């Protein structure tokens, strides 16, 4: 009975998916209604999940049925909150976009819910095969979503690219699982952790190879260089709502499993991967910056910059390996920060795209601030947060990541991080410059107050509050509160 409250959010999401599938079979329901229903189910899931946040918990989900397959901890709860709120934001902000395009049907929304269900499972997963199934549930839904606009070549190309490469790396995950199973005789995280603790590194070749293969999948999914080839094209080819969903929500889900694996299971042999990770981090930071700096289309620039952000997160991961206690909360905080900023920036792009159908290059943003002053202001906030400008939550994210890197002695890596942050100022500020510094010959458009703009403005306020909010107002999680949440999540892991 105790487990019920923890499984209800997942059930709610799944039920929503089925309801939408059934509704989608008939073509009488409007897109708007689909959207409302989806959001309704997600809000139920979110509320239920939130109500468990303050409960004391330990143990596993229905231990008598599933054994130790699903764990219940605050870590999973906080991730689930991010997934559901990410999906809610995606759907609400894109309300106008859904209306402006004809190809969104019931299945589309069902797929979003399926992928959220997969992610929630992933956050709870405490066993490798379950993790794989959860990961693939989420991924398959996202593959389909990326290519959802069948008549668009770029979209289909993106889907194929993503699916073929993604499935290939999925095979690595399976191989890694098999090898780990061969070594330990189990796929459960408990037993793997026990095995790792009781053996010397040199006796665990099989397990180490397996774990490295798992890491390949994870690095692919977050788009780390040299596994990044798909990122820009897929982000570009996907419809705006899906780009937003992938960048803000799906990427975080990968970190849920990565953190669990590397903090719990392989904690005592983390140092083995440190040098490898450091090299990949350096490549990711520099490669991502090079990609982002050369783009003309804003969406592609954001895609490129999302690689750089993966690089910052990798700095945190390699700091965990060296044994910095600050690193894990830093990653959590950075995830929250990046989640907000990328959801906002992609959201605003799709909001603009819902009103004119052209591709948005830097040039198209010339004079934008004169046409849409409020949207431009909000967009600037997102850009500043992504660039890590102080007084936004993005700055504090970088602050924690860099201090954790210094704490673990990776001073050069921290220096490189700061250098790439400087480079990122160029391509983010370029957009602000385009918006503000050129006159516009078109008329001023009014700031329409509807659900999309309200949500976008809400994220912008949250970003600023997360950057400067004081600890004096204890009931609102400001700059101080978010890091406390992140710490609690990490503590609950151990």
């Amino acid at each position, binding site marked *: 009975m105790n487990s019920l409250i923890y499984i209800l959010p997942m059930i709610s999401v799944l039920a929503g998916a089925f309801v939408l599938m059934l509704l989608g079979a008939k073509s009488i329901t409007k897109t708007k209604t689909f959207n409302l229903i989806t959001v309704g189910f997600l809000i139920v899931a979110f509320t239920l999940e939130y109500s468990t946040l303050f409960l004391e918990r330990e143990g596993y989900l229905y231990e008598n049925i599933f054994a130790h397959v699903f764990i219940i901890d605050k870590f999973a709860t906080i991730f689930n909150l991010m997934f559901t709120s990410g999906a809610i934001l995606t759907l609400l902000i894109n309300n106008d976009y859904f209306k402006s395009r004809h190809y969104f049907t019931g299945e589309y929304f069902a797929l979003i819910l399926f992928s959220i269900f997969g992610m929630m499972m992933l956050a709870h997963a405490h066993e490798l095969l379950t993790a794989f199934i959860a990961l693939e549930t989420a991924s398959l839904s996202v593959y389909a979503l990326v290519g959802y606009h069948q008549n668009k070549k770029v979209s289909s190309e993106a889907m194929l690219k993503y699916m073929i490469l993604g499935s290939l790396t999925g095979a690595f995950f399976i191989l890694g699982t098999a090898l780990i199973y061969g070594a330990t005789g189990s796929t459960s995280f408990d037993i793997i952790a026990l095995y790792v603790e009781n053996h010397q590194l040199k006796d665990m070749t099989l397990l180490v190879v397996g774990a490295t293969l798992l890491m390949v999948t994870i690095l692919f999914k977050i788009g780390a260089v040299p596994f990044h080839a798909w990122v820009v094209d897929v982000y570009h080819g996907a419809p705006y709502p899906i780009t937003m969903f992938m960048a803000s929500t799906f990427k975080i889900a990968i970190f849920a499993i990565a953190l669990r694996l590397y903090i719990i299971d392989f904690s005592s042999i983390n140092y083995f991967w440190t040098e490898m990770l450091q090299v990949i981090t350096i490549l990711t930071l520099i490669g991502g910056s090079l990609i982002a700096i050369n783009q003309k289309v804003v969406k592609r620039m954001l895609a490129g910059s999302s690689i750089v952000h993966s690089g910052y997160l990798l700095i945190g991961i390699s700091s965990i390996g060296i044994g910095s206690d600050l690193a894990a909360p830093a990653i959590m905080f950075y995830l929250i920060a990046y989640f907000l900023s990328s959801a906002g920036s992609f959201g605003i792009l799709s909001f603009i795209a819902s009103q004119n159908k052209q591709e948005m290059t830097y040039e198209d943003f010339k004079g934008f601030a004169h046409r849409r002053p409020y949207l431009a202001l909000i967009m600037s906030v997102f850009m500043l947060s992504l660039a890590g400008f102080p007084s936004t939550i993005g700055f*504090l994210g970088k602050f924690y990541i860099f201090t954790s890197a*210094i704490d673990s002695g990776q001073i050069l890596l921290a220096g490189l991080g700061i250098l790439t942050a400087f480079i990122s100022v160029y391509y983010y*500020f370029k957009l602000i410059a385009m918006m503000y510094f050129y006159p516009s010959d078109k008329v001023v458009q009014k700031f329409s107050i509807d659900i999309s703009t309200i949500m976008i403005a809400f994220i912008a306020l949250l970003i600023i509050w997360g950057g400067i909010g*004081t600890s004096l107002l204890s009931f609102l999680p400001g700059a101080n509160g978010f890091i406390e949440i992140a710490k609690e999540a990490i503590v609950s892991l151990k």
Partner: protein
Amino acid sequence: MSNILTNIIFLPLFIAVILGVLRAPLKLLKVGAFFSSILVLLLVVFVIIDFDPKGNMQLITYLPWIQSAGIFYYIGVDALSLVVLTLIVLLMPPLYLYMYHEKRKGYWYNMMILQTGVTGAVLSLDLMLFYLFWETMLLPIFIMIGMYGSGMHQYNSMKITLMTILGSMSMLFSILYIGYIYFETYGIWSFSLDKLSLLSFNPQTSLWLTAGFLLAFVIKIPLVGFHTWMAPAYGSAPTPAVVIMSSIMAKLGIYGIWRFGFTLFEETLLFYTPFIITIALIGLLYYAIRAVSENNLRRMFAYSSGSHLSLIALGLFVNNIYAWGGSLYFIATHALASAGMFIMIGLTYQRFRTLDINSLGGIAQKAPLFTFFFAFFALSIAGIPGTGGFVAELLIIIGAFKENFILGFLTSFTMLSAMIYIFWMLQRVLFGQPNNSTPFADLNIKETLMLLPLVILLILTGVVPSLFTPYFEPYLTQLLGVAS
């Protein structure tokens, strides 16, 4: 009373936000902005009255901000920050008067945000808080140059932003590393200046950390070699932005070295002293030469400002009370003079639509009042006796002579070089035959009123320095007493 500094920092921002949310009409916006600057001025007057020159840091507010990372909202005022603070609040009302005809609303908002940024940077005593304000004050400048500037303003705006952010990123690295060293030593995080000053670094690390801070500050000043953003940015920025950049932000570079550099890395800075003094001396000469050969009034005074800021930096690194007193005094007087000068240049541009020295001329015949103010500010930048600039330059030069003869000799060269380009410029701009058929109005009453306070202050600082010295002399003796 302890909240007064908080009010001083955030009042303009608060009023800007209120006006923005209410979508205030232009007229209300103007009144609001001006009102905020006057209110802050009054608050600062209260602070000055209450200020105890013999005390250390005063009116301290110390509130938790991000506790787990040891970041506090920690502000306070001492003689050094009081000087810069007074300057800021003195310059804002005249600038708003200057902007009186400005119709673009963003302009006004940016000025208010800018004021919060610079005051915050001056008063904060927590390194992260300082960094926050230091970066924040860049944004309005970025927007103002880019949106309201002239010439290649988009490019120049991006250039100044990127260069200064490069500096502040290197400073951020140093700040983080210092915070970490504190954490390693004491087991908790802290970025408060007074706590961090207890640390001692190993020499190797210290060199790097100091370099991180210095890079940020010398780019902001800018010393020669880090100056490539200066002339283009000054050239394309609108007048209020130029005034803030040259009178306040450049001084914040000096202030930063003084406050953070000398508190944290007293000894390491000695290592950098020859280097800084050398580039400051080169700067004195280089900027003077550039100023002589420049035909655009605003760019010319950009170089002149660079030259005098090099002098201030030099005075700061010559470690004796004359030079330090001179530097502090020069921070104030140069800010007043260059603010007046750049406002005059702005007025010239409003009248002639050009700043090319060759197409100006013969102003003296038509507009005596204008000529008086123009010449007065130009000469007080050059440092003629009777203005504050003279006292300050004299003190720095005496300090330099006390250090060694050659340094003193080279330093006094600036005064000479400034005289050359200022007088030559005055002769070409104000006198001779009019080259320009534009009808030319003399200063009207409003413009006179806005410039008069600056003139009075400059004369007062020049004739009776004893009025002001009691405020910072105890501070300096104490500082140098500790140092030696």
